[in-house]
C-alpha cells in the first residue's frame, strides 16, 4: 500500500478543519472515545451540532478562539491508500506553520469559501503551492450549501482561480464543489450538486497517481553521519550514512565526492545493516567507498557522469518566516540538508506581490511572509540543484545565529543561462 501526504489550505474559516473532520468521520476513521470527547466539547455550543473542526484543533487556544494556530497531523487509512493529513492554519499570521505542513505534501487542497470566491489568502497559499512545486492541487469550493448549490457561482470561481493558476504556472488542478459541513462530495457523491460530474474528494485522493513524483534519474546523496565502529573486527570500517535524496546507486558506480571533487567508486551498499546491490530514493542507506578519502557530514556523493552545481553564490527564491525582518549584512547559517554554512543575503531583486502576483521593488527590510528573489553568498561552496530540478537538493533553510530560529525557506533558482 502507498502513502499520500496532503495538506489543507485556504483562508481563515474556509472550513479546512471541518473538511478533515468530515473526511475522517464519513470514512469511519474516528474511534468511539474520540467521538465522545468531541460530543462533550461541542455541548457548549449553541446550535448543538457536533463541531468536526475540534478533531484537529488540539490546542487549548485553538479551541477557545475557534481557529487553527499550528499544523495538526492526522492519519487515516482506506482499503486503497494510507494518508497523512496536515491541517494548516488559514490565518496570515501563521503562514509559516502552513509552509511547514506544505513542504512535505504530495498534494494540496485549497479551500475557497463559495460566498467569498478567490481572496488574498487563496492567492498566498497558491503562491506557496507553486513555489514548493506541490505536484497535485485540488481546489475545493466549500460551503456550497450557503449559496444554494449554485453552478453559476461555482463556475465563476473556477474561472477566477484558473487565472491565478495560469499566472503561477500551477498545473494538475482538480476542482470539486463541496460542503464540508454537510458532507457533500466528501466521501459520497452529493445529491444536491447533481450537475457535478467528477469524483467526490476521497475517491480522487485514493486514485490520484503519485508514484512518478520521486526522481529516480539523478543520483544525489549527502553524508549525514560517518559510521566508524573502530572495534577489532570492524577496525577499518568507514560507512557514510545518509539518505538517497534522488536517483539510484549501485555497487561499482563511479562516483565523485563534492565539493572536494575526488573520484572513487562504490564498494558496498547497506540498508539497515544488510548488504544490498542497489539503493534508491528515499531510502536511508550506508555507502562504503573503494578509496580512503577525507569525507565529513554535509559532503555529497554523486555519480561522476551527473554532477550538480557547486558554487558559493546562489540565486534563490526565499520566503521569510520570522517576525524579525531580514537584517541586510547580517550573517545567517544556511542549512542545506546536513550541510551547515555561514551565509549572507545579497541583492534583493524583487518581491512577489500577493494580490497582483507581480514582481515589485523591495522597500526597506524583507518582512514576515514576504517572498523575494535574492542572491545568497556562502562561506564555503554548496553542492546543489535547482529546486525545480530536484527539490531535495534545491532547498535549504536560514537560521538566525543569535536566536537559533529558522527564519527563511530557501529555494534555489535555476542557474542563469550562459550567454
Amino acid at each position, binding site marked *: *500500500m*502507498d*502513502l499520500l501526504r496532503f495538506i489543507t489550505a485556504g483562508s481563515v474559516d474556509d472550513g479546512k478543519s471541518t473538511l478533515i473532520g468530515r473526511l475522517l468521520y464519513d470514512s469511519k476513521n474516528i*474511534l*468511539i*472515545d*474520540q467521538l465522545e470527547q468531541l460530543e*462533550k466539547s461541542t455541548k457548549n455550543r449553541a446550535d448543538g451540532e457536533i463541531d468536526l473542526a475540534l478533531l484537529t*484543533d*488540539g*490546542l*487549548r*487556544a485553538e479551541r477557545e478562539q475557534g481557529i487553527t*494556530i*499550528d*499544523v*495538526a*497531523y*492526522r*492519519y487515516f*487509512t482506506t482499503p486503497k491508500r*494510507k494518508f497523512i493529513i496536515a491541517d494548516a492554519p488559514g490565518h496570515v499570521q501563521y503562514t509559516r*506553520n502552513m*509552509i*511547514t505542513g506544505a*513542504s*512535505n505534501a504530495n498534494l494540496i487542497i485549497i479551500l475557497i469559501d463559495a460566498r467569498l470566491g478567490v481572496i488574498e489568502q487563496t492567492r498566498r497559499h497558491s503562491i506557496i503551492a507553486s513555489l514548493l512545486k506541490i505536484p497535485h492541487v485540488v481546489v475545493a469550493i466549500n460551503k456550497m450549501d450557503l449559496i444554494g448549490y449554485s453552478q453559476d457561482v461555482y463556475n465563476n470561481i473556477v474561472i477566477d482561480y484558473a487565472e491565478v493558476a495560469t499566472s503561477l504556472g500551477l498545473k494538475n488542478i482538480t476542482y470539486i464543489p463541496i460542503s464540508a459541513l454537510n458532507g457533500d462530495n466528501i466521501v459520497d457523491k452529493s445529491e444536491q450538486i447533481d450537475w457535478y460530474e467528477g469524483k467526490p474528494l476521497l475517491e480522487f485522493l485514493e486514485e490520484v497517481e503519485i*508514484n512518478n513524483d520521486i526522481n*529516480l534519474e539523478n543520483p544525489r546523496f549527502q553524508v*549525514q*553521519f560517518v*559510521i566508524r*565502529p573502530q572495534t577489532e573486527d*570492524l577496525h577499518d*570500517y568507514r*560507512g557514510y*550514512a*545518509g*539518505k538517497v535524496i534522488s536517483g*539510484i546507486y549501485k555497487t561499482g558506480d563511479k562516483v565523485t565526492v563534492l565539493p572536494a571533487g575526488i573520484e572513487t567508486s562504490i564498494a558496498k551498499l*547497506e540498508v*539497515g*545493516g544488510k548488504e544490498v546491490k542497489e539503493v*534508491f530514493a*528515499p*531510502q*536511508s542507506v550506508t555507502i562504503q567507498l573503494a578509496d580512503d578519502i577525507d569525507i565529513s*557530514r554535509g559532503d555529497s556523493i554523486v555519480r561522476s557522469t551527473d554532477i550538480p552545481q557547486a558554487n558559493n553564490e546562489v540565486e534563490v527564491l526565499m520566503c521569510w*518566516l520570522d517576525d524579525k525582518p531580514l537584517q541586510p549584512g547580517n550573517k545567517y*547559517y544556511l*542549512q*542545506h*540538508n546536513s550541510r551547515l554554512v555561514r551565509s549572507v543575503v545579497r541583492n534583493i531583486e524583487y518581491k512577489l506581490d500577493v494580490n497582483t502576483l507581480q514582481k515589485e521593488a523591495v522597500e526597506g527590510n524583507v518582512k514576515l511572509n514576504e517572498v523575494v528573489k535574492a542572491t545568497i553568498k556562502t562561506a564555503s561552496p554548496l553542492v546543489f540543484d535547482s529546486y525545480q530540478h530536484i527539490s*531535495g537538493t534545491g*532547498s535549504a*533553510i536560514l*537560521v538566525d545565529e543569535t536566536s*537559533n530560529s*529558522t527564519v527563511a*525557506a530557501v529555494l534555489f533558482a535555476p542557474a542563469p543561462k550562459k550567454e
Partner: protein
Amino acid sequence: MSQYRLNYLEQLEAESIHIFREIAAQFERPALLFSGGKDSITMVHLAKKAFAPGKIPFPLVHIDTGHNFPEALEFRDWLANEVGATLIVRKVEDTIKQRNLTEPKGKFPSRNWLQTYTLLDTIEEFKFDCCIGGARRDEEKARAKERIFSVRDEFGQWNPKLQRPELWNIYNGRIHKGENVRVFPISNWTELDIWNYIRAEKIDLPSIYFAHEREVVVHEGQLVALSEYVKLDDTDTVIKKKVRYRTVGDMTCTAAVESNANTLDEVINEIISTKISERGETRIDDKVTEAAMEDRKKNGYF
C-alpha cells in the same frame, strides 16, 4: 519500475532512520528515553539499523516510576544488553525523597506527573542536549501538533505557540546553552504501523503484550491489574481474566484489555477491529481534562 518503490512501512522506516542520524550528528549528548513499551522498543530497533554495524551512539535512559510491570523491567535489561547500549536508570522514588515531593493520593496513585521532575533532574545531571521520545502524533491531539525536533526551554517547557518552522526533511537542532530538544523519530507512525512493523521485522516484545491470565479489578469499565500499588476498596472485587496490554506504562495507570491474542497476527487483528483508541482504552489518567497532555508538555513532560 516497481522495484524502486518503497511500501509505506519502508518509507516510515527510512524517515525515522534519517532522523536518528540527524540526532547523532547534531547533538553532543543525546539520550533515548526508554519506557519499556512497544514504541521505545521499536525506536531501539530503528536506532540499531541507523548505525549498523556500529553501536547505538547514545544511552538508553529509563525514568523509573517504581510502578512498572516486572516483565517490562526484565525486558528492558535484556534489550539494553542485547544491543550493547548503556542503560541509565533514574528513579522517581529518589526524586520524591530528595526533593520532598508529595506522593499523589487516590485509588490509583499515578506517578506519571512526577516523572517530569526526575526527567529534568536527569537531563541536568548528564547535560543531555537532546532527549529522544517515542511519542506518536496519532496518540493524542496535542501530540499531533508537535514538531519532530521540538525545542524546550531551560525548564523543559514546550511553547506550542512558538514552534520553529520545520521544512522538508531539514531539522534545525540549534539551541542555546541550557535548552534541550525533544526529538520524536516515530511521529508519523500510527499504532497499527508499529504493530505491522514489529511483525515484519520480528521484533521481540515483553510477554504482557500477549494474552495471559491476570488478577484485575474493574474500574469504570477498565481492567486494572492487581498490584501492591493499587489501593482496593471494600466494594472492589478481584477477578481473573485473560488479558493483554496495548500499551505498557505504569501498573497504576495502564488498563489491560480482554484478549485471546497469543500471536502478533492475532493482536493485529484485534487492533484493526477495535473501536476505541489506544489512549482511550488503556490510560486511566488522561481523562481528566481535554488539555491534560498539552498542559503536561508545557511543564516539561515528554
